[in-house]
C-alpha cells in the first residue's frame, strides 16, 4: 500500500465494511429474535390476547406473569413447567370445549393441578419448554405423554390400594390376579392365591387322557362342541383362567400321556345306602328331584350352566367355581362323588365348601349331574389315545417343565417353578431402549409393546414362551393400565411419605368356629374384618346386627332377604349344633363398639311410638320405595317383614343415625332423623314379626 493512500478508505473497503456491519447486526439479532419467538412466549402472549376477549379478563390474568411458570415437588423429584403454556388449567370459566387448547381448564379432579402439576399423572418431560420435547419421545427423554385412556395407571404411583375412582385400574389388577399373571411374572401388589392352578398330582384319577388332550389343545372350546357357540351374556368376558399354549400334536399326545399317568391312589367308589339305590332303580323320575335339589342348594351361586335361549347360549350362574354344563363328560363318576363329599381330600386348597350330605341327596344330585350335565360328542374329535407309553410319559414330563406348567400347577415330586417369565415390577417405567422389539412391526412405544405382548406374544417375538390370552378391548385397556402402573420399588426420594400402601388383611379364626369357617368356606362369599369375598353381606358386625336365634334359623335354612338377587346362600344342611356354634361366635365376636346392645330397651317402646313410626315409614320418608313389608314395597333394600325377629333394636337405631358407619358401602341414604323419629321408627320395625309360615314352606320345599 502506498503511503499517500494510507488513511483513505477505498470504495471497496466501505462496501465490505457496510456488508459486514449488516451481517454482524443480523447475527446479533438472531438470539433476541429466537428468544422472542420461543414457543412458550408465543403461547403466553396468545393467552393474554385470549383472556382479553373473555368477560372475566381480570380474574383470568390475576396471577399471570410473563415468565416460565414452574411447579416443583421436591419429594417426588419433579419439576413441572406445563402451566407455562397451559395457562388456564385451573380457571373454572375456561372449562368449555370451545376454549382453544392449550388454555382449556382441566376437567375437575380430586387433586389441584396447580399443586401437583401435570407430569406426575400425564408423564412427559416436565422441564421442557418446547412443545415437542414436553409431549413426545425425544433422544433425551423416552417417556412420552401417557395416552389418556391409561391415565389411571398414574394414580397407583401413590395409591397402592384400589380406589373407587379408578375403575379401569382396579379391573386391570383384578384381571392380573384372575389370569394368574403372578404365576410366571413378578408383579408386586397383585394378590397371589394359595393355589394358582389345580394340583395335578392325581389328575389321572379325575379326567381321561382324551379330555386332557382336548383341554390342552384349546381350553376355550370345552363348552361349545361344534366350536360355533358364542358364549356371552351374564359375564360376557368370562374366560377359563387357563391360557392357550399353542401345543403341537406330538406335544399334546406326550403331555396328555404324562398327566393321565398321574393316578395316585385309586378312588374307592362310595357305597350308598342300598335302600336309596333301590328307590332310584324303581323310580327313574327321581332324577327330576336331583335337579330340584341342585337348584335348591344354590350350586349356581358359584357354578354356571350354559342355557340356550333364542339361539344364543348364555352362561347363567356365578363364577367362583368352574362352569358345569358338560362336567359329567369330563370327570369320572367315582371321583365326582368323592369330590362332593370332601373337596379338600382331593385339592387341599379347594374353595368348595364341604356340604353335609344325606345319602339320598348325594345320590340324586350326583345322578342328576351324571345324566344331565353331559355331552357324549364332547370328545368325538379327539384321536384315539391308548395307555401312555413310557416314552410319551418321559417326554410329557419334560414338556411340563419346559412349558412352565409348574409355575401354576403343583405335581408332588416335581420341583415347582419360580420366576419363569420376566420381572414386570417396573414395567411402567421402562424406556423404549429397554424393550426388546426385535424386528416386529409394532410402533415403538411402551403402550404398543404391552398391548402387542398381551394380545399376541408372537407378534413381538416369534419364539415367545408366553401363552395366548384372548381379552376383549376394554379388558385389554384395563390390563395395560394395570401393567403401566407397575412402577417398582421407588428410589429413596422421600416418596415413601406420599405412598398410601395397599393392605391385605387376613381373618383366620381358631377353635371350633375356625374349623366350621374353613369347612363351609364362609370367607369365599362373606367378608370378615376386611378379609374375604364380596358376593354376600359383610359379617364383620353381624353380632351387633342380628339376633342369635335368627342366625341359627337362617343357617339351618338360608332364605334370602333380597328377593331379586339370583345368587343365594347355598343350603349346607348345617346341623343345629354347628349352627349354634357359628351363631355364638358371630354374636360374641363380630361386634362394633358403636352399637350398645344393652342401651336400647325394647320394653320402653310404646304404642304411640309404633304408630308414629309407621306413619314416618309410610308417609314422611316413604321407606316402602326400597323396602318390602309383607307383599308391598320396593326391592332395593332388604325385606323387613321379619325385622323384629331379625335385628337388634340398638342396631336399627344406630343404622338410622349413620348407615355407612356400620356398612361402609351401604346404599341406604343417611337421613336427618330426629331422636324421636329414630326411636319411633325402631319401635315400629321391632313390631314386624313373621310367624313361621314362610320358613315352613321353604322347609317343605327341601323334600325332606
Amino acid at each position: 500500500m502506498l503511503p499517500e493512500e494510507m488513511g483513505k478508505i477505498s470504495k471497496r473497503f466501505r462496501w465490505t465494511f457496510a456488508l459486514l456491519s449488516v451481517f454482524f447486526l443480523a447475527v446479533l439479532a438472531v438470539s433476541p429474535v429466537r428468544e422472542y419467538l420461543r414457543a412458550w412466549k408465543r403461547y403466553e402472549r396468545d393467552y393474554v390476547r385470549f383472556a382479553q376477549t373473555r368477560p372475566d379478563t381480570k380474574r383470568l390474568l390475576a396471577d399471570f406473569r410473563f415468565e416460565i411458570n414452574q411447579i416443583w415437588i421436591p419429594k417426588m423429584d419433579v419439576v413441572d413447567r406445563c402451566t407455562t403454556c397451559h395457562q388456564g388449567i385451573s380457571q373454572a370459566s375456561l372449562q368449555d370445549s370451545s376454549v382453544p387448547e392449550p388454555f382449556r381448564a382441566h376437567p375437575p379432579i380430586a387433586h389441584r393441578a396447580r399443586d401437583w402439576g401435570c407430569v406426575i399423572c400425564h408423564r412427559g418431560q416436565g422441564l421442557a419448554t418446547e412443545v415437542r420435547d414436553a409431549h413426545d419421545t425425544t433422544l433425551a427423554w423416552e417417556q412420552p405423554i401417557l395416552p389418556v385412556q391409561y391415565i389411571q395407571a398414574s394414580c397407583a404411583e401413590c395409591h397402592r390400594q384400589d380406589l373407587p375412582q379408578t375403575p379401569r385400574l382396579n379391573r386391570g389388577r383384578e384381571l392380573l390376579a384372575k389370569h394368574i399373571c403372578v404365576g410366571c411374572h413378578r408383579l408386586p401388589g397383585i394378590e397371589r392365591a394359595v393355589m394358582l392352578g389345580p394340583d395335578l398330582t392325581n389328575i389321572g384319577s379325575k379326567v381321561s387322557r382324551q379330555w386332557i388332550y382336548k383341554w390342552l389343545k384349546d381350553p376355550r372350546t370345552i363348552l361349545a362342541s361344534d366350536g360355533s357357540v358364542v358364549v356371552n351374556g351374564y359375564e360376557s368376558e368370562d374366560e377359563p383362567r387357563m391360557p392357550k399354549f399353542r401345543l403341537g400334536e406330538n406335544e399334546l399326545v406326550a403331555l396328555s400321556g404324562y398327566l393321565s399317568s398321574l393316578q395316585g391312589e385309586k378312588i374307592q367308589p362310595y357305597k350308598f345306602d342300598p335302600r336309596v339305590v333301590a328307590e332310584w332303580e324303581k323310580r327313574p323320575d327321581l332324577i327330576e328331584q336331583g335337579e330340584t335339589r341342585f337348584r335348591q342348594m344354590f350350586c349356581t351361586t358359584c357354578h354356571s350352566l350354559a342355557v340356550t335361549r333364542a339361539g344364543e347360549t348364555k352362561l347363567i350362574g356365578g363364577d367362583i367355581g368352574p362352569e358345569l354344563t358338560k362336567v359329567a363328560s369330563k370327570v369320572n363318576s367315582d371321583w365326582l362323588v368323592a369330590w362332593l363329599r370332601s373337596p379338600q381330600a382331593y385339592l387341599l386348597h379347594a374353595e368348595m365348601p364341604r356340604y353335609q350330605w344325606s345319602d339320598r341327596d348325594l345320590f340324586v344330585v350326583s345322578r342328576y349331574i351324571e345324566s344331565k350335565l353331559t355331552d357324549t360328542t364332547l370328545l368325538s374329535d379327539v384321536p384315539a389315545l391308548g395307555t401312555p407309553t413310557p416314552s410319551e410319559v418321559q417326554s410329557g414330563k419334560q414338556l411340563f417343565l419346559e412349558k412352565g406348567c409348574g409355575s401354576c400347577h403343583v405335581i408332588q415330586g416335581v420341583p415347582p417353578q419360580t420366576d419363569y417369565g420376566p420381572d414386570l415390577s417396573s414395567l411402567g417405567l421402562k424406556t423404549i431402549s429397554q424393550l426388546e422389539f426385535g424386528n416386529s412391526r409394532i410402533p415403538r412405544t411402551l403402550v404398543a409393546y404391552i398391548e402387542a405382548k398381551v394380545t399376541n406374544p408372537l407378534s413381538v417375538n416369534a419364539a415367545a414362551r408366553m401363552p395366548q390370552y384372548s381379552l376383549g378391548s376394554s379388558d385389554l385397556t384395563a390390563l395395560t393400565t394395570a401393567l403401566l402402573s407397575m412402577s417398582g420399588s421407588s428410589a429413596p426420594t422421600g416418596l415413601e411419605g406420599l405412598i398410601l400402601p395397599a393392605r391385605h388383611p387376613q381373618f383366620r379364626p381358631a377353635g371350633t368356629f375356625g374349623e366350621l369357617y374353613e369347612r363351609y368356606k364362609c370367607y369365599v362369599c362373606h367378608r370378615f374384618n376386611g378379609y374375604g369375598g364380596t358376593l354376600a353381606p359383610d359379617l364383620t358386625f353381624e353380632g351387633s346386627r342380628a339376633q342369635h336365634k335368627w342366625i341359627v334359623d337362617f343357617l339351618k335354612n338360608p332364605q334370602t332377604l333380597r328377593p331379586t338377587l339370583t345368587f343365594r346362600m347355598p343350603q349346607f344342611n348345617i346341623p343345629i349344633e354347628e349352627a349354634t356354634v357359628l351363631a355364638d361366635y358371630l354374636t360374641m365376636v363380630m361386634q362394633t363398639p358403636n352399637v350398645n346392645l344393652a342401651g336400647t330397651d325394647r320394653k320402653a317402646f310404646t304404642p304411640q311410638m309404633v304408630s308414629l313410626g309407621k306413619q314416618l315409614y309410610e308417609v314422611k320418608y316413604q321407606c316402602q320405595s326400597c323396602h318390602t313389608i309383607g307383599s308391598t314395597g320396593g326391592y332395593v333394600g332388604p325385606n323387613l317383614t321379619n325385622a323384629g325377629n331379625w335385628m337388634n333394636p340398638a342396631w336399627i337405631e344406630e343404622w338410622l343415625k349413620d348407615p355407612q358407619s356400620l356398612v361402609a358401602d351401604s346404599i341406604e341414604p343417611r337421613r336427618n332423623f330426629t331422636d324421636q323419629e329414630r326411636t319411633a321408627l325402631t319401635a315400629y320395625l321391632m313390631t314386624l314379626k313373621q310367624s313361621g309360615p314362610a320358613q315352613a314352606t321353604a322347609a317343605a320345599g327341601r323334600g325332606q
Partner: protein
Amino acid sequence: MKPKLTIVLVLVAGASLTPSCHKKVAPEKLDPILRAYDTDQDWNDSERVIPLNYQQAQGKRVFYQYCVWCHADATPAGPSNRSNLNPMPPLANDGAVFNSLSDDFLRNTITLGGSAVGRSALMPAWGITLKPEEIDAVIAFYRAIAQPPYQAPARPGPQYSVR
C-alpha cells in the same frame, strides 16, 4: 467475491434463524372414545359408547351404586325397582325430562329429596350421604348420557358473577 459473500451471509443468517421458527406438529387424531377417562354404553343404542371425563366417570360410579336401582330399567343385580314405584321415576338418560331442569334444581332435588322441591317423597334426600362434589358429578353424568343430548344454557353461568 461479493456474490459469494452475500450467499454465505444469507445462508448463515437463515440457518441460525430457522430452528426458532415454530414447528407445526400435526395434531394427533385419536378416537375420542379411546381418549376418554371412562365410558358408558348408550342405554338405547348398543353400538354407541359415550366417552366420559373424570367428573362424569365419578358420577357414573355414584350412579351405579346409589341411583341405578330406581332410575334405570336394568341394574347390576337384576331387574330394577323402577316399575315398582308410583309415580315411576324418570330414566336417568331421559333428556326430555332432565334437559329442561337446571343444574341447581337437580342439585337441590338430590340433596334435599323429592319432597323438598315439590316432587314425590319416594326420592330420598342424599345430602348427608353424598358429598357435594359427588352430587355435581352425578349431574354431570346425567348430562353426558342424556337422550336427546343436553345443551348447556347459552347465557353465562354463575361462574361469571362477582362473589
